[in-house]
């Protein structure tokens, strides 16, 4: 197991390098740069001085090497858009908010999704199956940018239970968590149902029943372990995506998270910010895929041998 983890971490290095390189060059080849503004600096001399300050007057190859050098030292550089702030500072303050939202959303998604999926799987083709599964279908179909404003309309503007936007009080967490978690809950419910249905028809479950294990024990101990595999496989990338922040939900609820920076940095041609957030996101995905693999190996004895 340890060998696997070390090996995977070593493999991550070239992956990150490729990501960094691609991001660097794609940005440079995109039309428009950080200093192209509505009131541009017309004078060539001033422009040159400004570019020199940011090392952008050097040949592209040299800039790339400098960029890699700084990266090795963990220096993501100053943001081009947010004057005076450093990229790592911005990630450090905004990431915890996205992460917190992600945890709440995951909790909602797991609680709703697993419950609905389990009930549906245990009583297939009954009302208890159709009802939660139809709800899940709606959850998948209704996008967050519709769900969010609807929830705000009902609970903030009509009932006045929560703020319409912001990230100050505990109450501010509820609607975004429901919006974001709801979408994931729907997937989890369907995956759980599918996985459980497959597992519950297996021979070893019949054996468990036969040896006299209680139905609850059969479902929770024998069934879930195999039935949850698809859910776990789904959760890895999903959790990474959630942690990196959801641009849509962060916009709707005015949450100062990483998702907004991730998208806006590209529009602003904030070179350092884009590479910083992209690398951060890539690292998260690699990490979570690793964690998921480890959990899957633990859940599924057949994988251990390989």
């Amino acid at each position: 197991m340890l060998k696997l983890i070390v090996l995977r971490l070593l493999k991550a290095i070239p992956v990150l390098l490729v990501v960094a390189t691609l991001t660097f060059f794609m940005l440079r080849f995109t039309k428009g740069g950080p200093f192209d503004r509505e009131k541009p600096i017309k004078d060539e001399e001033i422009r040159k001085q400004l570019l020199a300050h940011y090392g952008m007057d050097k040949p592209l190859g040299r800039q790339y090497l400098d960029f890699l050098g700084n990266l090795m030292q963990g220096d993501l550089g100053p943001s081009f858009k947010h004057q005076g702030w450093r990229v790592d500072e911005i990630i450090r303050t905004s990431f915890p908010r996205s992460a917190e939202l992600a945890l709440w959303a995951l909790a909602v998604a797991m609680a709703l999704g697993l419950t609905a999926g389990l009930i549906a799987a245990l009583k297939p083709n009954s009302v208890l199956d159709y009802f939660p599964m139809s709800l899940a279908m709606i959850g998948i179909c209704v996008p967050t940018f519709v769900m969010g404003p609807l929830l705000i309309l009902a609970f903030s503007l009509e009932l006045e239970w929560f703020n319409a936007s912001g990230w100050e009080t505990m109450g501010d967490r509820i609607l975004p968590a429901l919006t974001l978690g709801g979408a994931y809950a729907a997937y989890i419910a369907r995956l759980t149902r599918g996985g459980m249905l497959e597992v519950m028809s297996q021979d070893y479950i019949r054996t468990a029943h036969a040896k006299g294990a209680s139905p609850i024990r059969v479902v929770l101990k024998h069934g879930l372990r195999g039935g949850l595999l698809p859910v776990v496989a789904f959760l890895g990338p999903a959790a990474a995506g959630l942690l990196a922040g959801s641009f849509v939900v962060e916009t709707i609820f005015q949450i100062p998270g990483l998702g907004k920076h991730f998208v806006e940095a590209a529009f602003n041609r904030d070179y350092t910010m884009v590479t910083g957030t992209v690398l951060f996101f890539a690292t998260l995905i690699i990490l979570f895929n690793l964690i998921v693999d480890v959990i899957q190996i633990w859940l599924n004895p057949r994988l251990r041998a390989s």
Partner: protein
Amino acid sequence: MYPRFFWLALVCLALGCSKSSSDKNSDSIPQILHLGNGAEPEGLDPQLVTGVPEHNIISALIEGLVTEDKKDLHPVPGVAERWENSEDGLVWTFHLRAEAKWSNGATVTANDFVESYRRMLTPTLGSQYAYMLHVVKNAEEYNLGKLKDFSQVGFEAVNERQLKITLKGPTPYFLSLLNHYSWFPVHIPSVNEHGEFDKQGNRWTLPGNFVGNGPFVLDKWEINKIIVVKKSPTYWDRKTVRLEEIHFHPISDVEVEERTFRAGQIHVSNTIPLNKIEVYRKKEPEKLRIDTYLGTYFYRLNTKRKPMNDKRVRQALALAVDRESIVRNVHHRTVKVATHFTPPGTGGYTYEGKMRLEYNPERARQLLAEAGFPGGKGFPKMSLLYNSSEAHRRMAEVIQQMWKQNLGIDIELANEEWKVYLKSAQEMEYDICRAGWIGDYPDANTFLDMWLTDGGNNYTGFASPEYDQLIADAARAPSAKERRAIFQKAEEMLLDEMPVLPIYFYTARYLIDPRVREWHPTILNHHPYKHVYLAPAD
């Protein structure tokens, strides 16, 4: 029983009294103003930023030589308690007040201003608004690196409290210029302490580092979340300031902002979604404000490309646009039809010339036929470029339709993401492109000097020595009246040549809680915060 009722009555009385007294005394409701501020500011360094959200915050933190009247924004004493202008209009002497202090307690001196302007004009700083200072003698030369000796530039600290500014030529709008943040002083010792004096990326504007001299001080800045400013204990006119705090919320999504306003979390919004205007008009008109604003929405025409190098084609395009219909149907009558370029009443100037962009499809067809395209036949394929946005797309579609109906020509629409669009516009890689211009200061010059041959924001290929001469003459005009007359001529010429196609004049459209007081409609949508306060609900 009696004693019990007695106590009850007493309690009621006490409660009643305290309530009614709180109604009368506005100081008993929390004086914390929440503002929707559009986008997250790029920064808070007045010498580096360029936008409106930045202005809204910086004007709370820093005060210039003069400041703005709360109702019509005319320059009133700020750091300078009085000033004189020499007979030839070239030399201004400002007398700074002794009680003007920085937020760290230091006195604001004439040298602070001189050093600030030195920083602003230093080429390595790369300030985009440095040109606002080019009216000063030798400022442009120093800014472009042609002159190395700053003492030759027309700024001089005669003594601690006397600042002399020598201009390049007469500048009738000079005092209004001073209200622009590019003219604000910065606290140079703080700048030096937190980074390089003449380089970008300085950290002096971060909370804890920021030293200002305005009515408020920076308390908190969390990117994309909030900026909080608190009443300054060192501001010279702190007795006038009634707000304790202002919270700036950077809400860039208009729908989110409107919901936040409706939930009572902000007092004043930055804007309002178009589709909500009729709703507020019907249900809560007291919350809706539509104020005249110093800006024009227009299309640039690339005069270097065929067939647009023919003036008749440009005029035909302009006359075939039904601006009334756009204002009525697209903008719910919240903006004003622009039949000329400079918004009416800009610094006392309103265009009155004969050449006007009335809707005249008949004449437009005739002009197009004269140019060789009768009924639009043989008209080459052209595209209309706009930056990706729902509002610009709608506008472009409506105008595309008008051109098709009235002129029989097909213009295709092209949208580009903001930075790409800017680059395309600036490099003139377009046929027709959307644009907007918000005046930097309330004077017609800020709208008309764009079209100088080497004007920084021309990008149309329009170049006329005669026009350039008129704008230069205007600056030297002996009286305001004659100056306006020259502007009339210049604008007439601009409209005749038609490198631009004005569509409508902007308005500031926003929502406001009726409890906000001293929030007057002003042409730049500035609201000097030191007068603003919150009153209890009626």
